[in-house]
């Protein structure tokens, strides 16, 4: 890789200045688990790398009733899944943050980086979309917000303009009777990139025996040029009873929406098949969590979780 200038500003203002000066020739460094690999592969040959980890705002993780969850762009995965507040309120994010790479990767990789890297197969993005997350961005023209589902614009490209950087990701606290779940399919049990991923967030109404969906959001990984919000699949559930049938119908809509390609990680047809399987499982997991039932994450899962409505 070509050598570059390494900078480590301690304020957002300084960082924006360093980035703006170089435009496309500057890259932001957070956890580095994508960037450093890409530098070696010469996908980018920046003149300046701006390490943002010394900036307080991008390192904060906080959950509050009023402001919801705020994850600084450089907060590594291991801090996210260890956080009690996240575990309790955003189990679907815990699911996603503990399967990005192995423990070593999770020691560095951030959800902000995962989002900015804009890989179609990014595990955290469907989970963030399902929770209705927003990206908080700062640049030479000040701050702005971008819905996470609009953040990725193509494989490896995002909505940030030259000089802009991601500061944090935020999302509202889920209401009562709601739950989220993210899962993916990989041939091994860890370390792979998702062949397909599915995240779901549901809010339920009705009594325990006659639950109905008040709302649902479903998002997919690795089946389109960007992580994909399938709004119509979620909308199809609104007001519907929680049954295997309504869930299967939503999964079928998700399958329709998927536009997978064939590559060494899986053939397109198989990916489309998996969208149906995983969407169902993500919805069932989210429903169970909304009902206060236990759905294991990757560390808790000792064997196969059962994806059946109780």
């Amino acid at each position, binding site marked *: *890789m070509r050598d570059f200038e390494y900078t480590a500003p301690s304020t957002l203002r300084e960082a924006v200045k360093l980035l703006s000066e170089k435009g496309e020739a500057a890259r932001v460094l957070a956890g580095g688990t994508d960037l450093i690999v890409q530098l070696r592969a010469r996908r980018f040959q920046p003149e300046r790398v701006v390490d943002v980890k010394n900036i307080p705002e991008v390192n904060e993780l906080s959950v509050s009733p009023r402001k919801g969850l705020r994850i600084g762009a450089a907060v590594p995965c291991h801090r996210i899944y260890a956080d009690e507040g996240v575990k309790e309120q955003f189990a679907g994010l815990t699911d996603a943050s503990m399967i990005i790479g192995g423990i070593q990767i999770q020691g560095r990789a951030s959800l902000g980086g995962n989002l900015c890297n804009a890989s179609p197969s990014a595990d955290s993005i469907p989970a963030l979309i399902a929770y209705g997350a927003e990206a908080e961005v700062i640049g030479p023209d000040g701050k702005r917000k971008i819905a996470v589902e609009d953040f990725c614009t193509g494989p490896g490209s995002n909505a940030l303009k030259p000089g802009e950087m991601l500061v944090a990701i935020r999302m509202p606290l889920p209401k009562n009777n709601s739950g989220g779940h993210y899962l993916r399919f990989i*041939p091994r*049990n860890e370390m792979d990139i998702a062949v397909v991923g599915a995240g779901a967030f549901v809010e339920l109404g009705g009594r325990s025996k006659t639950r109905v969906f008040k709302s649902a959001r479903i998002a997919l990984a690795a089946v389109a040029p960007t992580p994909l919000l399938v709004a119509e699949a979620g909308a199809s559930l609104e007001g519907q009873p929680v049954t295997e049938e309504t869930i299967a119908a939503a999964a079928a809509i998700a399958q329709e929406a998927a536009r997978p390609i064939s590559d060494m990680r899986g053939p397109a047809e198989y990916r489309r098949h998996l969208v149906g399987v995983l969407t169902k499982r993500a919805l069932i997991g989210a429903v169970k969590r909304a009902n206060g039932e236990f759905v294991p994450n990757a560390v808790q899962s000792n064997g196969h979780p059962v994806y059946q409505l109780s």
Partner: protein
Amino acid sequence: MTDHGETTRKGGEIRNFGTQTYKVVGTRPIRHDGTDKVTGRAVYGGDIRLPGMLYGQILRSPHAHARIQRIDTSRAEALPGVHAVVTAADLPDTTGGRIDLGEGHADTKYMRDNILAGDKVLYRGHAVAGVAAVSLHVAEEALALIDVDYELLEPVIDVETAMKDSAPLLHEGLTTTELNEDTGRKSNIAMHIRHEMGDVQQAFAGAAHVAEAEIRTATVHQGYIEPQNGTASWSEDGQLTIWTSTQGSFTAQKQLATILDIPVSKVRVIPQEIGGGFGGKIPVYVEPVAALLSRKTAHPVKIIMTRADVFESTGPTPGSYVRVKMATDASGKLVASEAHIALEAGAFPGAEIGAAAMCVFSCYDIPHAVVDGYDVVVNKPKSAPYRAPGATQVTWPVEKVMDDLARQLGKDPVAFRLDNAAAEGTRRVDGIVYPRIGGRECLEVARDSDHYQSELSGPYRGRGMAIGYWFNIGLKSAVTASVNADGTVHLVEGSTDIGGTRTSVAMQFAETLGLDAADIYPSVGDTSAIGYTDVTGGSRVTYATGWAAYEAAEDVKRQMIERAAILWESSADQVEYSDGVFKTRDGSKSADFKQLAQKLEDTGGPVVGRATVHPDTGVGGSFAVNIVDVEVDPDTGKVDILRFTVIQDAGKAIHPSYVEGQMQGGSVQGIGWALNEEYAYTEEGRMANSTFLDYRMPTSLDLPMIETIIVEVPNPGHPYGVRGVGEASIAPPPAAVAAAVENATGTQLNVLPLRPDRIINAMEDSIPAAAG
């Protein structure tokens, strides 16, 4: 994941079929090089750093098949920090010829062409030029400044296409040979071999039950964690010194001397600790380039491959196409078999087709059999041995057919195999008659094992079993042993130690002299410090180098007896040695080994024992049996290994923990081969998954404990009854796992790896399994 048995116990079960009990052999001492390896102190090839050392990098072909029209290195040479660039033009003239590598031969033109491409590149990753610079990063920048013009040619990337008459030819001059006889036929088929015994056609005609299978397996890699590396220092006096991680320092020396066209005496290879090999570190790759760069720059040069280089440029094991047909009489005795085996050699001839043809039916007693084997060049990296090379590719088709026949006969799969197991006196298809072997005992132990006797229930769960075979290679080994004044012994051997063999060799030495394993200090000598020793491969080190250690210990014993005689002013025939004590026959004088060692100075000076061996007797083979339980997710096709048992004949297990380690490691490599590992190629012949991310070797989370049962059927040809155990364990796992998956899903599978999408397709194509 189920755990069977206490998880912190230090060893598995051992079943003895007539081996002796010893004082040192069969115990589990801590390995001699262990402390250095758990503290990070051990020096591996990549850890070498020499004064003035430059860093080398290699430019590799982006194309699978192309003619090199022009290479311009001037821009790279002009980059500040670059000391030299080399290409094939810097190699000696490539006129051809053969070199004996101990374990087979190689064509010198092909060898040189694989180090740096001559007129053609034959696979993506084929080395084209080397650069030496002041830092790794400068060398890497220089690669981008080398201009190469290619004329693209059509690639051939699978064995079936390559065998067609219409296929593009990789080597214009290549013709098919049949057991060293040139047929004159221009083809990508470099060699055809045939074994035939009895009257196969007639035997099939009279058979009661017939089954057949047609199997394809993907190219897979040994997957050692340490990339190939080499550091060269070419001195002004013409002496070349190489530090490298190699499976055989003398084989590396021979290859370097041949490729560079210099006498072997001018090459000294200093083997470093080696981070895995499994056959893949027998050939040299970067060492000759480092040597050329060193000669050109007058500096030492170190080259370490990147992981992508390792996948794309070092020898994987061949992808294969295999057809097998077998038949029994009405009672269930095998009467006939035939096999067609085609292996992808890669860019140059030399897949292990001989071994495949020999191993294919080696587990069974079959009176009429024929095997045709083909060594076929394709536009992939030149294949290299990988643990029991050729055996794994042929074991699944045979075992699948055996399961089919057992079903037709209504017999238990193990019982059916036992009815037909090869044993002492069985004649194999290549004509060889077996000495005492342990295949039958392994099957019996499998049948009676807790695992096989246990119930397996639950939907989409299935059990499979299989047996595989690998022979031993004897070959040459040397050992010297210097007795120290404190009665310990420094033992020098020539076999590089990949898995604890220093200790298994030292233990045989200690046993022979009645000493403790801890009293022996084994080390691996370089090519100037020990006699010629063949590669660490072919399951031979504990067997052959262990035998040399036994002989060296006998030599020490003889000399020490003479010293005792001098000390006691007696004669050697009056002194005896047992249980570590020298005594005169009348019992009047005695001294233990340590006491006598203190007297060496006064009785003639140092004692150095030595031995070389080249065993040609008692080179037995080893059988491995697997039992595996799997569960398949019917919605995704994902396979989980629930329980896995490996049973293997070790002859006598010198250090049972390291025997178990070989069994477990080979099993897990076989599981990876079965489930996920493969070279994924694009149509242009580019490997699309040359990272550990996408090559998908098993992680700790993909496996249960690997249960082992060591079967000890002594090898009558070895002083301690040893059979080499390094390789057989990789042969049966794909067969056993595939059988388990077929049983779990009610499908028939015929391609490796058993990818989830393939399983889903097979399930959709077949009648729904009787879940439960």
